[in-house]
């Protein structure tokens, strides 16, 4: 049952990272880059596999980006968004 949480082998070609989404795009979180310092932090804020995120806007200078996750609006930098792998959506 735990296997479905994250699986490194399963990273398909279609996998993108959160920072590559455009404003308005919706996607499902697939995994957080393994062994990343920030993984714990991101996960406790709710970035966990299986949940949907929607990119609501970019800051005027393009970074950070603002996403909607479980009804809350969270702003994060592209560098952090890059460690979150997403699939599907648009």
């Amino acid at each position, binding site marked *: 049952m*735990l*296997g479905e*949480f*994250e*699986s490194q082998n399963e990273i398909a070609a279609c996998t993108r990272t959160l920072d590559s989404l455009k404003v308005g795009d919706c996607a499902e979180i697939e*995994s*957080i*880059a*393994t*062994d*990343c*310092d*920030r*993984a*714990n*932090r*991101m*996960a*406790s*804020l*709710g*970035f*966990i*596999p299986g949940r949907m995120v929607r990119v*609501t*806007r970019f*800051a*005027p*200078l*393009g*970074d*950070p980006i*603002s996403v909607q996750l*479980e*009804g*809350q*609006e*969270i*702003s*994060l*930098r592209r*560098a*952090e968004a890059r460690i979150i792998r997403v699939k599907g959506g648009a």
Partner: protein
Amino acid sequence: MNALAESPLKKTTARPLVALVGNPNTGKSTLFNRLTGLRQHIANYPGITVEKKTGLLRVGGSSIDLLDLPGCYSLTAVSNDERVVMDVLGGRRGFQKPDLLVFILDATNLKRNLLLVSQCSELGIPALIVLNQCDAAKRNGIRIDADLLSKRLGVPVVKTVATRGQGLSELKDAIVSALESPSVLSRIPWPECITEGCGLLRAGLQNSESSELSQAEALRVLFDSDSVFACGVSDKLCLKKLVDSAHRSIRDSGLNPGSAEAVIHYRHLDSLLEGVVEANGPIARSHDSIDALLLNRVWGTLIFLSVMYVVFQSLYSWSAPLMDLIDLGTSAAQDFISPFLSSSPALQSLVCDGIIAGVGGVLIFLPQILILFFFIALLEDTGYMARAAFLVDKLFSWCGLNGRSFVPLLSSYACAIPGVMATRTLSDPKARLTTILMAPFMSCSARLPVYILLIGTFIEPLYGPLVAGAVLFAMHFVGLALALPLAWLLNTFFLKIKTQPFILEMPDYRVPTLRNIFHRMWERGREFVLRAGTVILAFSILIWSLLYFPRDPSVEEQTTQSFLREAAANHSEVEIQDALKNPTSELNQVLTHRIDSAYIEQSYLGRFGKAVQPVFDPAGFDWKITVGVLSSFPAREVIIATMGIIYNLGADVDEGSDDLRSVLQNEKWTSGPRKGEPVFTLPVVLGIMVFFALCMQCGATVAIIARELNWRWAAFSFFGMTGLAWLGAVLIYQIGRLI
């Protein structure tokens, strides 16, 4: 509910300790204030309360110690706030372990809020759950079955609306009965790989008290390499080896050790909340449409700029009359006290020029601090501040600061002291350190008089008001323009601290309450007067004594004699005698000012200034400027008064004084290779201004940096800035001379 054998309320030794725990911005401080009657920071900006605060809660006949903790999202100790929480919950570093944890949860976002609760269940401390912001939850169509939640968690659940005081008496009763018959949170079932990992760590490691790690400690060590518990383990090599092998087995069972903890907790919470929370269709978010405007590329930026313009403008125009009033009050107090002490000139000078002037020098900052914190409180309470941080983050991120640095840096434009204090809202220690070091570079209001004096005296008459205005504007950006690249250098090459992710939760927009805002102003003002004020006072008394002593009476005699000889050339004997008897006569005043000036020249600081003048010679400073600069190290605005004395005008001059301006314009070198040339040439004037822009001439800032970081950083900041200031002044003078 599993009752515990010992009830803390029955202990006769000490009052029971109840801690308020929860995510940032859920209403802990609001509830704390409601419960204790004590007031505290309340701000609609995550992470405002950084220090723990205690208050007394009286219910019926018993009294309970209530502890307000900073908000945190999880037990992962990334920021100082979280470390404080971990220390309290673990009963470490002299903190008493709480008898009861009251979790304050934001009912609009229950699952995320419950993560912390779920983590704390391992601690085995009796708990009580408060669902706060029930009004907002209701508005968003969220319904929560408190009884079911209570049954599943194993502890009582109370609903409140902290801002309106709803549910308070129920909460008080619940606290009392939870202390009488405590119940602990039911633990979550861990997958095998985690329990195995914990067992491995517990078997192989010892904590700081050299006993075996508890299960809770082992979990923290396993999931958080920076946890306070991991820091307590002495054998770091063994720690790393064990953690690595535990992580390997977690990875083998298909989990990411980085995010496993949160993933498992959320999985557990998903099933726990089944049937507890009921959301009415898609949540109607009131702030989406406001955000669309305020965070819009064009409009959002324009609104941001206008808001900041209003803040900046009010800071400068509103504070002026109040500052004048404080100035008036200071001199009135001096005039009032002075006659009583005329029998002892040294005491008179200590009280008037040292103490009263020092107190005035502290109070003079108050208006700007109050006005600034009015705006900061307003922006934070409405929820705009987090948006502002989002809008400007990119401006700061390249150099290691972040969007939250904006507020402290903006505050520093009024005064670096509240600015440095405001950095406590930065959860990233690296960004916080850098922001603190950069704050004194921002052009604080104490630099303004120097700019106004020099620009008004030398630049406006020559180049007109337009250029003068432009120079004044530019002076405000010299420090910033230098600080940001410096921050980048520091961050890239020198600071070996882990960078934290910059993640902001956008709070809902709220209508701010005036009471809250005024409380913030009051608290900040008081903090400034008590914390910084005493240091400023001490520094100003020290400098006063360096300027006053040794006060050899022969200085007065010699000055008088040479003055009389000079006067005899133009006046008759009788005229001079008459004039000297009349204290208000012009001759007498001139004499007094000359004596004052001679005393300063002979004072310890004057001698020192003359001795170190060669150091400032490459910047074109004569000994008078040097003494002025040295005397303004405790507080830069002092330079105007010192210059007044040095230039024989008395201390009562200000930056607008025509006398001072004309004296400066006519000042010539009296010796050396430049003899006869004017002292204040354009390069010198610009050099002085740049020196003031870059130099850490503020004892209080040094002291506050030492308090927030440590004395090493304070010394680094002081010497670094002074060196830079010298370099800047020298460069400008030398280049200016060539042109």
